[in-house]
């Protein structure tokens, strides 16, 4: 009982906790995944802001180059050089005529060129001779008349800006990767100084962002965060043309399992503790009540035991006294009969209580001894005779088990007493038909009365302890509700059973009331 109770409580606590834990883990995982993607989204937005800065710088460069390539006088090589000299960003400048021939530096025209110009011609020959610059028609910038091309140089991949002028000439400017980077580094933030004067310039926060060139090399990085050596970027963002191939990277700090998980775990722990505390409290309450109940039962047992001895004495002396009462003293005999009957009733009650409590502890043992069932039944009927007489119950006993068999006489008396006790209570002024039949090794005793009977629906309930049926017939009738259960248990211990028969079946079928059939296994005595 206690073990089952504990198991129940463990389940009661463990099952919801396990469910909640599973839910919590699931939720936490979800939360983390969402948090992770939130952080990544924020990082991507940060990179997009940087990319916008880069785009702005490139647009500015493009505007400057547009203005320069518009304004530059291209007719005369010396004029080009003079214009170029004060503008080092135009140091690598090409002019092509409408037919795509190189006009500046004027190598093809046989004009003098400097060493740097000669180098530029050789470096970009592929582009203007047959390549993209010779015919940038496929370029999306054709309608605008200007655009960018990638240009591989000795120091990495740079850019070639070109524009078509109204005079039919195409001016192109090579921007080496170092020049692109000089422009970008100047625009991108520096790192916030740990010490020193608060900078009025743009500075980065406690993270680390990086710019990689098309070769994948780290070109510039900023931010106070120190990523692990060879750490992979958390998110990257490819830059838009003309900086195709360049890449921004967010190096962290990477998102860490957030406080949400901690919250869930903490909530789960708190909830588990609450459930456990409630369960413990319930368990203690329950065991306390059980303890109290068992104390009460044992108290009743004690009392019953204590009552048994004086009751036996009362019965014994009442029966002794019966012999001394004059035969004509009807009044006195009647009073004495009442004493005897009532003490017998009390004795049965006490026996039932003691049997019940022993049953509870599994201590009921039957002791079969040779006896005649009919005799025992007759004795019990005799005990009830005064009661039946007082209530106007007539008894009809049909003997059918005269043989000596092995039977526990006390148990049989108790079973039959409990059945007849009900008859006495519920069928006053009626009849009771008792019949025994022997079919070795079984002996059957049928008790039928003319009382109100028991509904078929209650046929099993009446054998459960403490069940007392409602209804007018039972109103005001005292009882404990343990008589029939004890009778059935004893019958089953005796290798038989006690059943409620449907009305109109078996012996005494004429009677309309309750009809019990008690079957016992009675080994014949050889």
């Amino acid at each position, binding site marked *: 009982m206690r073990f089952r109770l504990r198991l129940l409580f463990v389940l009661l606590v463990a099952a919801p906790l396990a469910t909640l834990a599973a839910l919590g883990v699931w939720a936490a995982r979800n939360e983390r995944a969402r948090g992770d993607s939130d952080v990544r989204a924020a990082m991507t937005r940060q990179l997009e802001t940087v990319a916008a800065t880069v785009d702005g710088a490139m647009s500015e460069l493009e505007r400057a180059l547009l203005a320069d390539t518009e304004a530059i006088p291209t007719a005369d090589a010396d004029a080009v050089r003079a214009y170029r000299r004060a503008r080092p960003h135009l*140091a690598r400048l090409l002019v092509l005529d409408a037919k795509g021939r190189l006009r500046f530096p004027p190598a093809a025209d046989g004009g003098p060129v400097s060493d740097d110009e000669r180098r530029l011609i050789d470096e970009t020959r592929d582009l203007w001779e047959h390549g993209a610059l010779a015919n940038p028609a496929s370029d999306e910038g054709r309608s605008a008349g200007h655009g960018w091309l990638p240009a591989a140089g000795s120091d990495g991949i740079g850019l070639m800006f070109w524009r078509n002028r109204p005079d039919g000439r195409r001016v192109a400017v090579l921007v080496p990767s170092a*020049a692109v980077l000089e422009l970008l*580094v*100047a625009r991108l933030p520096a790192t916030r100084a740990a010490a020193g004067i608060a900078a009025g310039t743009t500075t980065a926060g406690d993270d680390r962002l990086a710019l990689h060139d098309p070769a994948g090399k780290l*070109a510039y990085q900023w931010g106070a965060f120190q990523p692990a050596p060879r750490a992979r970027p958390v998110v990257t963002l490819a830059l838009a043309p003309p900086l195709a191939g360049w890449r921004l990277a967010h190096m962290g700090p990477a998102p860490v399992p957030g406080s949400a998980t901690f919250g869930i775990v903490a909530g789960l722990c708190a909830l588990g503790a609450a459930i456990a505390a409630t369960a413990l409290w319930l368990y203690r309450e329950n065991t306390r009540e059980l303890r109290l109940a068992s104390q009460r039962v044992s108290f009743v047992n004690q009392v019953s035991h204590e009552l048994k001895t004086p009751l036996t004495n009362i019965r014994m002396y009442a029966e002794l006294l019966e012999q001394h009462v004059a035969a004509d003293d009807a009044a006195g005999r009647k009073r004495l009969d009442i004493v005897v009957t009532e003490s017998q009733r009390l004795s049965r009650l006490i026996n039932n209580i003691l049997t019940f409590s022993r049953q509870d502890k599994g201590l009921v043992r039957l002791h079969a001894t040779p006896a005649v069932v009919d005799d025992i039944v007759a004795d019990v009927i005799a005990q009830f005779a005064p009661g039946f007489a007082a209530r106007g119950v007539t008894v009809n006993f049909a003997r059918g088990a005269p043989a000596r068999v092995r039977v526990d006489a006390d148990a049989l008396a108790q079973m039959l007493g409990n059945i007849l006790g009900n008859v006495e209570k519920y069928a006053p002024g009626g009849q009771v038909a008792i019949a025994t039949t022997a079919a070795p090794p079984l002996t059957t005793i049928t008790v039928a009365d003319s009382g109100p009977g028991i509904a078929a629906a209650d046929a099993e309930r009446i054998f459960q302890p403490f069940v007392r049926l409602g209804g007018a017939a039972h109103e005001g009738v005292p009882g404990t509700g343990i008589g029939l259960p004890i009778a059935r248990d004893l019958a089953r211990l005796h290798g038989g059973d006690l059943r409620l028969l449907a009305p109109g079946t078996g012996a005494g079928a004429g009677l309309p009331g309750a009809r019990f059939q008690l079957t016992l296994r009675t080994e014949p005595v050889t």
Partner: protein
Amino acid sequence: MRSLPTTTQRLLRFVTPFTLLGLAVASRPAGAASASAAVRLEAGLAQPVMLAGQKNKAHLRVSLFGDKAQTTGPRPDANVCIAIDRSGSMTGEKMAAARDGARSALAKLRSTDYVSVVAYDSVVEVVVPARNASDRAAIEAGIAGVDARAGTALFAGVVKCAGEVRKFASKNRVNRIILLSDGQANEGPSSPAQLGALGASLAAEGISVATVGLGVDYNEDLMVELALRSDGSHAFVQHAADLARFLDQELGAVAAVVARDVEVKVLGAAGTHPLRVLGRRADVVGQTVTATLGKINGGRQHVFVVEMDVDAMQAGSKRVVADIEIAFRDLLGNRDVTSRQRVEAQFTKVAREVDAKTDPRIMSELGMLTGDDMTQQAFKLRDQGDFSGAQRLLKQNAAQLEATAKKWNDKRVSDRASRANKQASELSPAPGDWKVQRKEYKKSSIDDLLNGY
């Protein structure tokens, strides 16, 4: 070029009286240039008299001289950014020296100067954003916070420093970055060509970079190229304690700058063919040679020589060899100045006359510049591991310099000769020694190039 003949004619009329004297230097600065100009231009031929009837090789010397007399006045304001390498190798003494150096540089500045400090490792921190130099306590606090870390994003450090300089950049200030590094640039662009291009880009904005190599592990090619192309200066500081002295000098040089954005054009006349330029990086396009200088210091002379072919001429004829134009910003007068000079040559059949008119000073300088060229070649050989070849070339150089010194009796050349001799004898086959020697040689040659004589 089309306008040249008319200009030439006009100038010819102007200079005729002087050319009768047979002088190579035909005129004093003409036009806007005056005696009070911050930069004096001098141009002349090593041999102003050439043999007639044959092709001649001519050496045209151009000299720019910063007027020392004018440096006694108030120096122009300085706008300086100090870029400090804080890579891991700077840990300890070098880092402390860099901080001390920056502090002592700060002490040299006036309250009208501007200063900023940038520290770079893998990332770049603007430790002291550009501000007035009078804010001394705040600037020193910023410098004190610079400690060693890891990585060397040298390119980005310079770019960020330039950003700080730009905030207060002005034509009338000396805009300068002082770059301290003890190592190799290992993040971002890191080739001498890329840093050189950055230097050229900064020079165009009027910002020059003084590079300071600390210890013996820095990349001198890169540092020298950056300094050269930005018209800055370079120093090799082997011992941390020397740094403060260099910075003092450098700030002194800042103070002594008299002109900025100097452009020199040598316009060769018809029949001349410029071949190469010794002593300075210059563009040679057809008959035009263009050289630019970011700044000229007071008391310093910048010299380069244009080597050219001159077509055969008839005896007795006198003809223009080149016109030289110079334009610059006069920092002391706060104005743009241009001036122009014509160089002529005379042709004779008498070889004796040629020798008699040969200019010993120019021949000496030509010898020195040729010697520099040979020294560079010797470095290249030594870099390639050809120790004996390099040593042979240095000895040959020393011998040539000695001969030149003897012939023209010039102490500067004999100093060079002894230096070349010393270099030849000291040249060590040990790679460790070469690392140090290379830096010293590089430094002396860039000093000659950048700071003149």
